[in-house]
């Protein structure tokens, strides 16, 4: 299982899986990253997708086909996420859960752009020996 970010999740859903991503591994998006993506679908304002995407596109994002993209159950990760939050202070649910998922699934995380990693997550990942791979658009 490879843990990926919102960018890679979208690219995988549209069938534009980056070549760097091994194609024999199931892919999973942490639940709070899925929530963050869903906010783009539901909330008004810049980047609002509900007005731009067809209903079937939205359904694919809301409830992804598990063969294409899995959404991680956050419950088994919460204890680790809280421990990371306590140890590093103020990491937040998004960062805590992502790092907990990285620890659980092979000590690695995959991002679609370096801009979506963030300084805090990168620092903690390095400390926890979680490898971060970025598959930037070509």
């Amino acid at each position, binding site marked *: 299982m490879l843990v990926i970010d919102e960018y890679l999740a979208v690219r995988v859903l549209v069938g534009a899986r980056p070549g760097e991503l091994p194609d024999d591994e199931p892919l999973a998006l942490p639940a709070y990253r899925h929530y963050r993506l869903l906010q783009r679908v539901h909330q008004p304002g810049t980047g609002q997708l509900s007005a731009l995407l067809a209903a079937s596109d939205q359904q694919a994002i809301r409830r992804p086909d598990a063969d294409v993209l899995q959404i991680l159950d956050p419950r088994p990760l919460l204890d680790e996420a809280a421990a990371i939050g306590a140890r590093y202070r*103020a990491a937040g649910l998004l960062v805590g859960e992502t790092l907990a998922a990285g620890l659980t699934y092979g000590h690695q995380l995959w991002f679609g752009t370096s801009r979506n990693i963030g300084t805090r997550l990168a620092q903690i990942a390095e400390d926890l020996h979680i490898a971060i791979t970025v598959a930037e658009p070509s």
Partner: protein
Amino acid sequence: MKLRASVPVRRHNGAVTIGEDLRSERHQRRLAGDPRITPEGRALLLRLTTGDLMDEFQAALDADLAADPALGGHDADVT
């Protein structure tokens, strides 16, 4: 008393081939993406994640996070 080893008997009945076919089919589906995505949706989503709308998309993601301390934590620079 005779003891009989409990060894599962394997017979070739085509199940392996069917299993391989299913795995291959799932693999192809995984690579093809979600069939519910429309061509127009695909084009827009690619612009957001790999093209000219990346800046706008990232700004929106960051704004959502900044507006939600539980999700983003106390440090603004978390994404």
